């Protein structure tokens, strides 16, 4: 009986994961224990000898595992500003990303439409976009803090500015690239501009627009961690920074994993949306 490729890939993934945890476990064994079980690990113990002498070495998978259990078993507790459940922290981050992203959407989609429809606007705005696009979103932070005078709003602004460009550029590109034939069909049918925009151009450009949104979301999720480290207060980025200050590395590793998982979930969500609007010709 032949197993499917998916199944074999899953087995291999699991194997890699177990190997990774195993190596990590061996690498973080205390020197005493490694002496007891040495034989195969003699060389390794020698390598690790010095580092392992410190009271708090690199956390073992067991310690990180217990951090996972601890945080995930009660994700929504709130014991004051510096001690909130992971669910609350991720929630704050998602709220900021969501708000900034939505604002960027409200701005980028109509503007992208205008740019895509008008060769004049494309050329006129292109230099600005090209200069503004490569600026690290965090570089805006001082300006944002000064003008907006609110760290919360500044965080959202940073997400807004970093989500803006991929969406804007892809929308303009998608709109400009709508097949001439479809536009001509709409023209010969004397379709009014609003109907044309929503029933012809938008669906035709939707796959490209959604690709832009997916890229924007990916960038926004990367940027929010850095932004929250700077701004502080709440959010998964602040959580990482706070746990680093506590020197609680198991919690940091736990948070890193959570960032990865949430990022993956967001990307999968947009992937599904993308499938929904993609058409086959």
């Amino acid at each position, binding site marked *: 009986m032949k197993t499917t490729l998916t199944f074999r890939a899953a087995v291999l993934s699991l194997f890699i994961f177990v190997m990774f945890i195993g190596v990590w476990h061996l690498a973080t064994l205390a020197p005493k224990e490694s002496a007891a079980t040495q034989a195969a690990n003699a060389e390794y113990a020698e390598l690790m000898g010095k580092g392992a002498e410190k009271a708090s070495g690199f956390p073992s998978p067991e310690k990180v595992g217990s951090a996972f259990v601890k945080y995930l078993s009660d994700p929504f507790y709130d014991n004051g500003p510096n001690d909130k459940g992971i669910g609350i922290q991720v929630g704050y981050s998602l709220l900021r990303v969501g708000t900034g992203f939505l604002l960027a959407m409200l701005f980028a989609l109509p503007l992208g439409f205008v740019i895509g429809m008008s060769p004049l606007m494309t050329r006129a705005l292109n230099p600005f976009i090209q200069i503004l696009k490569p600026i690290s979103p965090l570089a805006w932070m001082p300006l944002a803090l000064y003008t907006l005078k609110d760290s919360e709003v500044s965080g959202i602004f940073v997400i807004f500015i970093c989500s803006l460009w991929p969406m804007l550029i892809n929308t303009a590109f998608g709109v400009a690239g709508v097949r001439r034939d479809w536009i*001509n069909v709409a023209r010969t*049918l004397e379709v009014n501009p609003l109907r044309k925009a929503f029933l012809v151009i938008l669906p035709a450009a939707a796959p490209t627009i959604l690709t832009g949104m997916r890229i924007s979301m990916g960038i926004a999720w990367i940027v929010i961690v850095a932004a929250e480290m700077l701004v502080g207060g709440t959010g998964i980025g602040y959580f990482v920074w706070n746990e680093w200050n506590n020197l609680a590395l198991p919690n940091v590793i736990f948070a890193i994993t959570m960032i990865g998982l949430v990022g993956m979930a967001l990307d999968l969500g947009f992937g599904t949306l993308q499938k929904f609007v993609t058409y*086959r010709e």
Partner: protein
Amino acid sequence: MTSHFLSVEGLAKIYPTTDGKPGTPVFEDIHFAIERGEFICIIGHSGCGKTTILNVLAGLEEASAGGAIMDDREIDGPSLDRGVVFQGHALMPWMTVLGNVAFATKSRWPEWSKAKIEEHCTTYLEMVGLGHAIHKKPAELSGGMKQRVGIARAFAIEPKMLLLDEPFGALDALTRGTIQDELLKIVRATQQTVFMITHDVDEAILLADKVILMSNGPLAKIAEIVEITMPRDRTRAEMHHDPQFYRIRNHLVDFLVNRSKGYAGSDAAQLHDAKHPPVVRPGLVSDGTPPGDNGGRPVLKQVVNQ
């Protein structure tokens, strides 16, 4: 001034060259007329501007000179009065077959109810033999079926005139034949006025009342207008038994192969009056001499309007 249903007067198109200067006209001084209910085919080699003429009639492109008047109104933009069937079907792939036709119908009659639109569209889709596929997406259809949807969409808005840009160019011979028959049936039933581009001589003979022959571009002109004098109820299966068929066919092929290139310098061109291009009826010439065999002047023997 004219009493024709559609009249094209002095049409010319000049595209700018790459350095921005005006180039040689693709075609110029194009005059012709179409009566209500007529089926006109236009034949010519690539580059003679057939599609441009069609686009001007559709209102999608602007001519550099001249213009066209349909039903006493100048054509100055796209209109629901003229349905277009595009070369590459141009269906919207995100809509179903019904959705595509409904989009057109809704544009024509925005006040209609959903049920009425659906009923109307279904009628036209059944007419092209697609009643069973109305909820499919275009991607699930064969090339021939897609083009049928395109035809149904154009007919569904009940335009005053139908413009077809080589609608069967991409189809295989068998499918092409079937759809030609369907088109012919529908056009006869609806008394539709049609202007169609084709490369297929047999297709033109089967469908058209008149065939406009274009000489080669640039500076393309209407060389002749060939009247298809065979009975109008001809069918694809029967028409080659008619003795007229081969006379017309030979005339058309001869033009495309031999005369279209050197047209500008030929004797025929000297006598050419752009406002009244020679109308010929090769089907009625009974002497059996194939045109082109007697010193390049056979055209004049058949000319009926000079």
